[in-house]
């Protein structure tokens, strides 16, 4: 039986179509449909309930940090307070156990690592967290997690929570909502400006109703979350990332602390530093369909001589481009300027390769919204 998120009844009474995802029943879309929800996020804003995701507070003491540094390729002792970091848990081969956000925050004047991780990887991740920290110093947050995404996100949230005007992309703060503490980060998974708010389940429904007072926002489901992240070229665990792919192969070496690759206490450090110096054998690319056929996860990519040169890991219809788009891996030696094809229903369809993202990111940095 799938688990239920706390606001299940609220979503159903608001027209959500619920589908099983990563062990939970989740809204995939509401009455307006995936394309309208997608466009509303790009043009105005949208509200996502992502309470299926794992949230953990780990007391930031030196021992836990040392233990965690075996898996996490960052200098955890040097994390800046009130900053979020996109990072990974790595296995012994440098493969990705999960991708996650780690932030350093103070709660009641005590320092914690606030970790947000994928629902589909809860067991694997929590095994590692509990191995690294003792139960007494680790707190499973049962909070709801909401994402407000889109260029008007600040207007949606500002009526309800006072957000510091100098808050930028990947800043995180403990703020007040009706006198209770909520964790607010300026981040998301759509390529747009936005916020993620961790809030107690008791306050969650009142909060989401407050957000919906803004007439230009709407509830959005996992369907548009997927098409938005794909347009933004963002990776999804189980698709672009898995235990057999390293962050370098996934084109995410920017998220690694390069000094840590020389540190033998980090899982897979040798493999990772080798890959950084010598190109990995595969590279991540974007694909756009030429005809109006849809590119889908698992399709094989061919050269003009029908040689298998790679595979699609995520594909969908892009409402912004009005075409099908995909992310996949191809052999690094293949010349991207040459023609490439996907086999779709026994026909070789020409596809165009492109760099990622498909849609320019619109994050808030240093007071302006830009890449």
């Amino acid at each position: 039986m799938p688990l239920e998120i706390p606001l299940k009844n609220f979503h159903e009474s608001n027209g959500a179509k619920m589908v099983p995802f990563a062990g939970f029943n989740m809204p995939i879309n509401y009455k307006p449909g995936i394309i309208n929800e997608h466009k509303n996020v790009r043009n105005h804003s949208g509200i996502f309930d992502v309470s299926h995701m794992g949230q953990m507070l780990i007391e930031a003491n030196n021992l836990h940090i040392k233990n965690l540094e075996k898996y996490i390729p960052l200098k955890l002792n040097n994390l800046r307070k009130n900053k979020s970091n996109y990072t990974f848990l790595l296995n012994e081969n440098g493969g990705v156990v999960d991708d996650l956000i780690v932030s350093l925050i103070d709660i009641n004047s005590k320092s914690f690592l606030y970790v947000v991780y994928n629902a589909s990887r809860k067991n694997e991740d929590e095994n590692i967290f509990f191995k690294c920290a003792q139960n007494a110093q680790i707190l499973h947050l049962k909070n709801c997690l909401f994402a407000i995404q889109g260029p008007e996100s600040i207007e949606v949230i500002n009526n309800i929570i006072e957000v510091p005007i100098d808050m930028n992309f990947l800043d995180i703060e403990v703020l007040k909502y009706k006198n209770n503490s909520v964790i607010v980060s300026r981040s998301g998974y759509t390529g747009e400006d936005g916020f993620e708010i961790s809030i107690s389940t008791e306050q969650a429904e009142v909060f989401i109703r407050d957000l919906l007072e803004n007439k230009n926002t709407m509830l959005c489901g996992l369907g548009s979350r997927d098409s938005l992240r794909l347009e933004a070229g963002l990776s999804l665990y189980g698709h672009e990332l898995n235990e057999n792919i390293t962050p370098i192969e996934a084109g995410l070496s920017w998220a690694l602390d390069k000094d840590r690759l020389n540190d033998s206490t980090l899982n897979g450090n040798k493999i990772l530093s080798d890959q950084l110096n010598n190109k990995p054998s595969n590279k991540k690319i974007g694909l756009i369909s030429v005809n109006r056929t849809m590119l889908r996860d698992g399709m094989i990519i061919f050269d003009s001589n029908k040689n298998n040169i790679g595979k699609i890991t995520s594909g969908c219809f892009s409402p912004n481009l009005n075409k099908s788009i995909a992310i996949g891996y191809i052999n690094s030696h293949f010349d991207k300027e040459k023609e490439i094809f996907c086999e779709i229903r026994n026909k070789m369809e020409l596809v165009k390769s492109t760099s990622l993202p498909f849609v320019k990111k619109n994050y808030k940095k240093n007071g302006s919204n830009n890449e």
Partner: protein
Amino acid sequence: MGVTMSEKKYTKDHEWVSINNGIATVGISNHAQESLGDIVFIELPSVGKSVNAKDEICVVESVKAASDIYAPIDGEIMEVNNNLESDAAIINQDAENTGWIFKMKVSNLSQYDELMTEDDYKKFLEQ
């Protein structure tokens, strides 16, 4: 381009069929379009093709997934709804009327008689 014809019948695969002068018009049910969500592309069958009931003859792609459409009865494809090529979302707006997908010459009318009536289909959906 309204379709007013004989009693509309339904298959278990959620196609609807309506027959006029031995020509069947076929589409997907309103229930099917609702569960597929936004339809973004359709691969129409080839005109002139002979098909048997249950053959996969065309594909509708929604944002999330591809779904096969089956021939409801034996026959030959006579015409396809070319409007869907540029705007497959017509199926979302009007699945059981202007969102028709293809017309076929029926070779075995008894297969049509065996399909579900609208009432039977409603009951089938409630199961």
